[in-house]
């Protein structure tokens, strides 16, 4: 087609050209002829013209043909070109279809155009896709049927085989291709073929039929199969033959056979077991029951609901509130076991042990339950019995525990009775105990009885009512029903609603001590062993009651003993504390002896001190006729006390009559027995403590021990007293030393509490003696905040000292009166011999005197330098001026005189200062001789003569005759000289001076008296201070050391200086001194 298409196109074109060009050329030729003719008509042409025209016409024709041919060829080329383009999709389509025909699938044309050809290409693509899908589906189906394990046959309506799948020959042993053309029934066994044909005819109208047949296999004979035949019908409903599916049933039939056998076997097994076996389905219907089951129920209960078959219940067990075995298994999917109690109206209750297993379906869900049931009635009753016995044992054990644990039976009765009631399922009970006389029973405890009834049976005589009868008979009584039993005919218990009653005697070791009883409000069948159990309980109760009574007795005895010991201890404690708290041992020892005597029930006690052979001195005793301190046994006497000290152990003499070679103090002659305890402190014997009895006594070990303890206490006290005394002496000495120390001593404990403060320290801190002891040192010191700084320094020092470091500080202490006391503080830790810190001792030095001395020294130096400067000023200044030489000669000599006198004064001052220094330093010694005052005064007169005459003074000297005294003549001369000098210095010219020496008794008085200027009353006290020269201008002449030196000299002779003076009237200085010894 494609090949012919261009040709056809060319043909069409040729036809078109012929149809167009020839008529066109003809028309043009005619029209041209017409034009020639017309032209010729209008203007006739010559021949030449005509020939020309004729030629022209021919040329025109030829040209037209050529042009036409040319146009035709051009058009052809154009058409061919366009046709080639337009036909390309067709060519593609053609090629694709070819491929499809060759079996290729799903071919796509890539031509995307909106024109008709594009549309055609898309339709082609769609067709191609659908065809491909169908082809694949077909392929799959073919593959399925071909690969199917089920034999498959496609037949015509007349059963002629058109095709078989591979399974068919595989199943039946034929070759696939050789089957085609045979009829299917030819492969069936005779019967099967007939049946098949018949069914096929019958079921012609149906589309599917199923039947079973036997196929003849090529080698193994007939094989059972199931055949499903389907009619193949097309869309219009036209029959297109038949298809047969076969299922090979050979393996299934083997399985069925095996199952049948299995079922028979399992039934046989089920039947062979003695247990009842039952299979129940999900509807709780019995699917199968074994022989035992059938025998038990007398019928095959198969198909019946299990609850109905087994229990005759219309409703299901779980609806009746029972445990449904099957349901448990269906719900959990697990085996379940339990014991069912099945009441049998005709016989005893039956117990069934049911064991149920689930049977699972292919989904793993339980769809049947196999229950196997065993009659365990016997076992259960046995277990019950064991359980009951266990309970009894447990109850007995508990009761025994209760009774043995408690020593107060009253508290245990309720619990015991409770247990007994529990054990025998009783409602109450109680206990009666016999009184000591064994005549009456007293109800000790009861439970479950009305109060009124309790009162009525509180006491029962022996033989009265059931408990009384039990006591008198001595054997237990068990009554099943009180109302019916003749034994309880006259019992009070009969009318209280009590039905069952048991009463058991309670026995002690030797005798019956009571009964216990239990009762029930309903009739009770007591078992054979019950009485025995009750008797065991009663036995335990008996033992318990006896034990308790024994315990009470023991306790009372123990209590007595304890009380006695406690008294002894108390006595000992009192003794110890009396001794320990007393510093004066003598005062208490007497009462201690009395105490010991009383505690030991003795008639006489004494404390004899001594070392055995060395004899004894009485220290204390209980008899006032003895005198403490008196010798009771002379050295070398053989005494009880001496023996016990020698043996170093207590001496107990129950009867002294048996003793030989023992001397007894005369006044002890009436005593029969004695106990003697040696007193030792360490290895040192102190003496003995002895007790004497009027009757024969053998004191217990305890008593001796007690006495030994007392002895030790006294021994220690004696030793302590001795030590205390010596310590007191030492302490007194130490205190005296401490008090006599000039420095303050303050002792504090490590916490800073004052232990002691000596007098000096008290003075410094402003305490009365002993007032500060027990106070916190820093607080006592603080006193307001005046001594804040001092206290902080003190605390610091205390801390340092406690840590073992030496601590010292200087500070000032402000006293109550506000005065400041400069002190130097030095602390050092005080330790015991063991090295333990007991406190800190501070030495407090009052620095006032030292500072004063320091100040005096400074003042002295300053004064000396000042006093020296004044004469020096004259000496230096005047000398300078003289040397300058601008003074008149008279003035010069005046100046030089002054220089000389000032130099002398300076020299005098220096020697005075040296004198004073020598005297004060103690280096100056008195050269004592018998004094001749006349001579002394003569010398004085000589030394002061020139000055006195210069001063126009009148000096009188008088000495009382016959003065006999001893002293340093030179010093006294110096002293009197100074005093005369002073009188001269501090007076106007013409002064009267008198020096007199008197002797009065053992005293000498030297008086220097003048009628000079006198001393201001305020100044008198200062006279004698170094360099003091009075405060009035005209008094400033002396060195100011005269009286000071005089006073020192007087002091050296043991004398004093007394000054009397009145301004304007004069002064009298009196030195009084003892006459002295050589």
């Amino acid at each position, binding site marked *: 087609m494609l090949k012919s298409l261009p040709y056809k196109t060319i043909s069409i074109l040729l036809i078109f050209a012929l149809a167009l060009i020839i008529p066109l050329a003809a028309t043009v030729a005619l029209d041209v002829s017409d034009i020639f003719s017309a032209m010729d008509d209008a203007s006739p042409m010559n021949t030449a013209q005509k020939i020309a025209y004729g030629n022209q016409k021919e040329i025109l024709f030829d040209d037209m043909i050529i042009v036409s041919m040319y146009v035709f060829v051009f058009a052809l080329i154009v058409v061919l070109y366009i046709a080639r383009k337009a036909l390309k999709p067709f060519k593609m389509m053609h090629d694709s279809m070819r491929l499809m025909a060759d079996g290729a699938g799903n071919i796509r044309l890539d031509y995307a155009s909106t024109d008709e050809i594009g549309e055609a290409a898309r339709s082609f693509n769609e067709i191609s896709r659908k065809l491909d899908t169908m082809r694949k589906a077909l392929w799959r189906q073919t593959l399925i049927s071909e690969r199917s394990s089920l034999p498959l046959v496609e037949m015509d309506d007349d059963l002629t085989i058109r095709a078989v799948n591979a399974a068919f020959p595989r199943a039946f042993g034929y070759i696939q291709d050789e089957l085609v053309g045979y009829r299917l029934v030819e492969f069936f066994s005779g019967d099967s073929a007939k049946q098949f044909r018949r069914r096929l005819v019958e079921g012609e109208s149906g589309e599917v039929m199923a039947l079973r047949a036997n196929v003849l296999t090529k080698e193994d004979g007939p094989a059972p199969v199931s055949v499903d035949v389907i009619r193949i019908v097309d869309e219009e409903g036209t029959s297109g033959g038949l298809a047969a599916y076969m299922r090979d049933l050979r393996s299934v039939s083997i399985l069925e056979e095996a199952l049948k056998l299995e079922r028979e076997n399992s039934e046989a097994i089920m039947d062979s077991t003695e247990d009842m076996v039952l299979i129940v389905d999900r509807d709780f219907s019995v699917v199968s029951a074994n022989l035992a089951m059938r025998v038990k129920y007398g019928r095959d209960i198969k198909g019946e609901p299990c609850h109905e078959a087994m229990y005759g219940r219309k409703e299901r067990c779980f609806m009746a509130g029972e445990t449904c075995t099957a349901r448990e298994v269906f719900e959990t999917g697990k085996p379940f076991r339990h014991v069912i109690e099945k009441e049998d109206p005709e016989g005893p209750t039956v117990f069934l042990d049911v064991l149920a297993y689930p049977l699972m379906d292919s989904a793993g869900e339980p769809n049947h339950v196999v229950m196997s049931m065993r009659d365990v009635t016997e076992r259960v009753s046995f277990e019950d019995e064991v359980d009951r016995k266990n309970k009894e044992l447990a109850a007995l054990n508990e009761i025994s525990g209760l009774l043995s644990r408690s020593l107060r039976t009253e508290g245990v009765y309720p619990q015991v009775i409770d247990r007994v009631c529990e054990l025998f399922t009783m409602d109450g009970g109680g206990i009666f105990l016999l009184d000591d006389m064994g005549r009456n029973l007293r109800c000790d405890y009861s439970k479950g009885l009305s109060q009124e009834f309790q009162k009525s049976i509180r006491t029962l005589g022996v033989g009265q009512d059931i408990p009384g009868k039990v006591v008198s008979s001595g054997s237990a009584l068990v009554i099943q029903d009180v109302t019916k039993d003749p034994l309880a005919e006259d019992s009070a218990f009969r009318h209280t609603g009590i039905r069952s009653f048991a009463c058991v005697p309670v026995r002690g070791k030797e005798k019956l001590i009571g009964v216990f009883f239990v009762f029930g409000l309903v009739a009770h069948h007591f078992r054979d062993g019950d009485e025995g159990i009750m008797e065991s309980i009663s036995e335990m109760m008996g033992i318990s009651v006896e034990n308790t009574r024994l315990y009470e007795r023991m306790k009372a005895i123990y209590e007595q003993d304890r009380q006695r010991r406690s008294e002894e201890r108390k006595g000992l404690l009192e003794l110890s504390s009396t001794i320990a708290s007393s510093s004066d041992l003598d005062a208490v020892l007497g009462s201690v002896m009395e105490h010991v005597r009383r505690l030991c029930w003795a008639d006489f006690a004494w404390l004899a001190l001594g070392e055995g052979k060395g004899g004894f001195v009485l220290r204390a005793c209980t008899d006032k006729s003895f005198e403490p301190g008196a010798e009771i046994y002379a050295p070398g006497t053989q005494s009880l006390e001496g023996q016990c000290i020698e043996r170093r152990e207590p001496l107990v003499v129950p009867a002294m009559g048996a003793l030989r070679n023992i001397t007894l103090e005369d006044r002890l002659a009436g005593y029969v027995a004695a106990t003697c305890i040696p007193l030792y402190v360490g290895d040192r014997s102190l003496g003995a403590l002895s007790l004497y009895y009027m009757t024969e006594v053998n004191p217990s070990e305890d008593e001796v021990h007690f006495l030994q303890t007392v002895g030790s206490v006294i021994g220690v006290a004696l030793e302590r007293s001795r030590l205390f005394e010596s310590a007191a002496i030492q302490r007194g000495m130490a205190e005296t030393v401490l008090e006599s120390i000039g420095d303050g001593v303050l002792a504090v404990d490590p916490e800073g509490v004052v232990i002691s403060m000596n007098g000096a320290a008290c003075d410094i801190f402003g305490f009365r003696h002993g007032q500060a002891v027990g106070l916190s040192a820093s607080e006592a010191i603080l006193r307001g905040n005046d001594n804040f700084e001092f206290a902080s320094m003190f605390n610091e020092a205390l801390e340092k000292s406690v840590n073992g470091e030496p601590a010292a500080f200087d500070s000032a202490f402000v006293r109550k009166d506000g005065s400041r006391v400069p002190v130097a503080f030095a602390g050092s830790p005080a330790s015991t011999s063991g090295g333990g810190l007991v406190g800190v001792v501070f030495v407090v030095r009052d620095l006032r005197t030292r500072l004063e001395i320091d100040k005096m020294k400074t003042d002295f130096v*300053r004064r000396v*330098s*000042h*006093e020296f*400067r*004044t004469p*020096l*000023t*004259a*000496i*230096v*200044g*005047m000398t*300078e*001026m003289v040397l*300058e030489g*601008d*003074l008149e000669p008279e*003035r010069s000599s005046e*100046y030089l005189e*002054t220089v000389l006198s*000032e130099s002398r004064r300076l020299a005098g001052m220096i020697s005075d200062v040296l004198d004073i220094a020598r005297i004060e330093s103690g280096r100056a010694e008195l050269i004592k001789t018998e004094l001749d005052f006349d001579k002394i005064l003569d010398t004085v007169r000589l030394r002061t003569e020139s000055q006195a005459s210069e001063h126009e003074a009148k000096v009188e000297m008088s000495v009382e005759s016959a003065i006999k005294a001893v002293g340093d003549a030179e010093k006294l001369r110096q002293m009197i000289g100074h005093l005369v000098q002073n009188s001269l210095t501090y007076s106007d010219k013409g002064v009267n001076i008198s020096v007199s020496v008197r002797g009065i008794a053992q005293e000498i008085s030297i008086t220097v008296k003048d009628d000079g200027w006198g001393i201001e009353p305020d100044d008198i006290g200062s006279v004698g201070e170094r360099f003091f020269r*009075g*405060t*009035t*201008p005209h*008094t*400033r002449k002396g060195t100011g050391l005269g009286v000071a030196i005089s006073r020192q000299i007087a002091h050296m002779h043991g004398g004093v200086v007394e000054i009397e003076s009145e301004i304007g009237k004069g002064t009298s200085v009196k030195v009084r001194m003892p006459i002295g010894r050589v």
Partner: protein
Amino acid sequence: MHKIVVIDDEPFILMMVEDKLMRAGLEVVASRESVKAYETVKGEMPDLVILDWMMPEISGIDVCRQIKGDPDTAHIPVFMLTAKGQDEDEKIGIKAGVAKYITKPFSPKMLLDEVLLVLGGEPEKQ
């Protein structure tokens, strides 16, 4: 002529100072009456006052304070003669308004130089 009041209880020191100053051409009013020292100064109104510190009845420092406390006399320079050698004493003196502190023993020539220095200018010699 400059007028100087000298007050000292030691007669020979007074004599010596008086001599030295007078010989230098100064007018000197010398007195041993320490109690009346202030009145003397007030009466004389000198150009300079020389006082001894250690005097009975009243100390030179107190006199100086009196002088310095009176507006009429406060301008008068005061020299202090003293045997007190300590520094703190000097401080007390300076605090009281002492112009010059002269420690005993002193050189009369040096005293004169100091006096002339305070008075300013050389006085004419006799």
